[in-house]
């Protein structure tokens, strides 16, 4: 592994235990089913090469972003959960960075020292078909925040002014 990527193996990989990670990707809203399937299959090969395992992938559908990313106002959210060493995170993120369809990604470590055999993978080919087909319409996005009746926490500018004055 290390000779392919130039990566040093993670400490957890040396110890023989794995970590559990989750990554959220935001894809361009123009991505269609074949794009997403291609991406998943490509990444599956990467995971296999590094001895990591995808536990699950969820499609949260095309959501409105709170602010536009790369001039895109909406994005398709994909939630990945997988087990592996830190080397897989590095390689996975490197692959995401060179994928045009990915607007943004964010990885969080969920758990350490997990027993990789105890967590079965839910990924099947049928499931991938449904995942790559985004849900038609998620939940209606909440209307602009300003219109919400914010009961107690209102007018924070006033609050800030108060704090600033000695």
């Amino acid at each position, binding site marked *: 592994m290390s000779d392919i990527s130039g990566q040093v193996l993670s400490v957890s990989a040396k110890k023989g235990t794995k970590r559990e990670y989750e990554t*959220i990707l*935001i894809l361009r809203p123009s991505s269609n089913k074949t794009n997403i399937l291609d991406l998943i299959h490509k990444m599956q090969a990467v995971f296999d090469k590094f001895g990591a395992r995808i536990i699950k992938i969820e499609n949260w559908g095309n959501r409105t*972003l*709170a*602010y536009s*990313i790369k001039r895109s106002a909406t*994005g398709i959210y994909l*939630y990945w959960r997988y087990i592996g060493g830190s080397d897989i995170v590095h390689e996975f993120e490197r692959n995401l960075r060179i994928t045009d369809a990915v607007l*943004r990604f*964010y990885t*969080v470590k969920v758990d350490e020292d997990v027993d990789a055999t105890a967590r079965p993978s839910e990924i099947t080919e049928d499931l991938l078909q449904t995942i790559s087909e985004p849900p038609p319409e998620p939940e209606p996005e*909440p209307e*602009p*925040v*300003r219109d*919400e009746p*914010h*009961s*107690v*926490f*209102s*007018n*924070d*500018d006033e*609050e800030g002014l108060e704090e600033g004055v000695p």
Partner: protein
Amino acid sequence: MSDDKPNRSSSRRSSSLLANDKTLVIDYKNPQLLKAFLTDRGKVVPARISGVSARQQRQITKAVKRARMLALIPYTVQ
């Protein structure tokens, strides 16, 4: 000074949403929950006002920053 703002601290401090539901986990993937701890300008509400514990406040700020990164909640609201 106190004449200008009578009863401010007592009226602002609200019983925590989190205190009512012990099973509630502060998670960056749950923007609906996090919005309860933001002002209408998108700032994080101080713990002395929202009434959450110091530990919960740390979890909230961390989750808010992660959720902002993923465009689930805004950095600023104009």
